[in-house]
């Protein structure tokens, strides 16, 4: 019995040795893999993705060429490209594609500015003061899970059908993520950074402006990126319901006339802009807070 209990740690040691040996042998074991890689290099994901897109477009043209689906439901890729070209040149429902996109971008950036101006101070208040947190938390938690289209009618009643209502709704859709990311950034500020400032003579306001705010910028930018995504989906949906211009309105009008090629062209434009916004936001993060990855 004693022998057995004494042996167990020993055998565990042996296991550890074996594991160690296996690790030491790993480089040798790896070599065949790299040789294999040299002959059959794994296909880059980007290539796979491109192939997927090509396959979808291929199937799509096949389906419309064979007349599997009526062109009213599914116009051919060629038709969609032509529709896109016409959108750019002559436009649809009183505006060119760029004017529609411009109207949409105007709304989203107007809303972004409004929600940043409100959201960052609100987030700072939540992150730094019990009072602020007590007051604002329930409001944010109420707003956050609401689908923006649910309060769109109310906003229209309150501020009218014009631009203001759309900007308000989009701003409300963007606010929670900006507020929450700001307060999360504030709460994650390093204790030592704050203490260092205090011991170097900083007062509470200086700590807020010189330490807490700058150290929250990465988190705030992430919030803005998420907000842009949320804002964009809300925007298109809001334009479907209540607008006389904008990319969402364009799709809605085209659908009413069963101009499916414009609908599809519009959807593709929406997706491309969403990707572009995401890209720009990431670029901004890299430019403004190169230090965020070096903390």
């Amino acid at each position, binding site marked *: 019995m004693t022998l057995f209990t004494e042996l167990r740690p020993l055998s565990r040691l042996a296991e550890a040795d074996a594991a160690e040996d296996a690790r030491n042998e790993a480089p040798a074991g790896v070599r065949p893999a790299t040789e294999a890689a040299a002959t059959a290099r794994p296909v880059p994901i980007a290539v796979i993705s491109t192939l997927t897109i090509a396959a979808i477009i291929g199937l799509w043209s096949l389906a419309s060429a064979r007349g599997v689906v009526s062109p009213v439901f599914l116009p051919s890729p060629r038709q969609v490209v032509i529709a896109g070209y016409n959108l750019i040149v002559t436009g649809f429902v009183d505006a060119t594609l760029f004017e529609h996109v411009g109207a949409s971008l105007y709304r989203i950036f107007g809303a972004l500015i409004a929600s940043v101006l409100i959201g960052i101070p609100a987030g700072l208040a939540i992150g730094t003061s019990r009072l602020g947190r007590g007051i604002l938390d329930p409001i944010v938690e109420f707003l956050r899970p609401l689908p923006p289209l649910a309060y769109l009618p109310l906003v229209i009643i309150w501020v009218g059908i014009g631009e203001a209502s759309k900007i308000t709704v989009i701003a409300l859709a963007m606010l929670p993520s900006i507020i929450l990311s700001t307060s999360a950034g504030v709460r994650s500020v390093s204790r030592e950074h704050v203490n260092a400032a205090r011991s170097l003579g900083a007062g509470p306001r200086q700590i807020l402006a010189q330490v807490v705010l700058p150290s929250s910028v990465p988190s705030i930018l992430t919030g803005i990126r998420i907000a842009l995504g949320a804002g964009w989906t809300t925007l298109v949906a809001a334009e479907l319901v209540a607008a006389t211009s904008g990319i969402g309105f364009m799709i809605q009008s085209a659908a009413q006339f069963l101009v499916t090629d414009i609908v599809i062209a519009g959807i593709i434009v929406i997706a491309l802009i969403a990707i572009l916004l995401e890209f720009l936001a990431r670029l901004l993060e890299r430019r403004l807070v190169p*230090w965020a990855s070096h903390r």
Partner: protein
Amino acid sequence: MSILSFRDVSLRYPPRPGSRAAGNDRLVLDGINLQVASNELVAIIGRSGSGKTSLLNLAAGFIAPTSGTIAVDGVPIPGPGADRAVVFQDDALYPWLDARDNVAFPLKLKGMPRATRQARAQQLLELVGLGDAGDHHVWELSGGMRQRVGIARALAAEPRFLLLDEPLGALDALTRTRMQEFLLRIQARSGAGAVLITHSIDEALILASRVLVLSPHPGRLTAEIEAGFSAEILAGAATEKVKASPLFKRLHDGLTSLIHSLPNEEAAA
């Protein structure tokens, strides 16, 4: 000259959440009496968990003592202040500022115009041997360079006392030795007093005019040694020679056996 003083200071942390046992709040420092003049460097050594950082945090004003007073020139400290600048073990530099702006940070807090404070920060960077590194991001600097930026930043506040919490702890042996001499000269030139927390008996003996030993559970200052080696080194003696002297060895051995005779954290836990 100023005096930083601890009078009958004790510190008790609240009990760990979860441990219900009565009287489980932990007395970390007890009966601490200490005076540091603004022209000397005092080293505090002690085992891990003996309360060294807690003692320094008290001096900085980050935390308040449970009883007793901490004062500068007889005036109880109201909290943290630029008269007691802290250099942290892991530098606590601001990554969103370059090295020069980090050093200029305390000057900015004072409202000094940008051009003036940048020039002053540049002088301080040159003082710590980093005249060329001002435009670097802090993450581009090595550990030793970052520590020097941290020291320059603390000096920019023109403190009466530097509070150094194992500032060299994360450095390799060679860099550490160089930084020790550097620290010694900087402190002597700055005209600020210093409290240096360290694990290294060597370091304490080389740098400090007095070495205090903090014994754990609860933390008490149990021994004090007057060490004159820093004066010798400042006067030009080679550090290696000083370390080789019989007196240094005797003090070193004495401190080593003293610290080993103290209970350690594991034994008490």
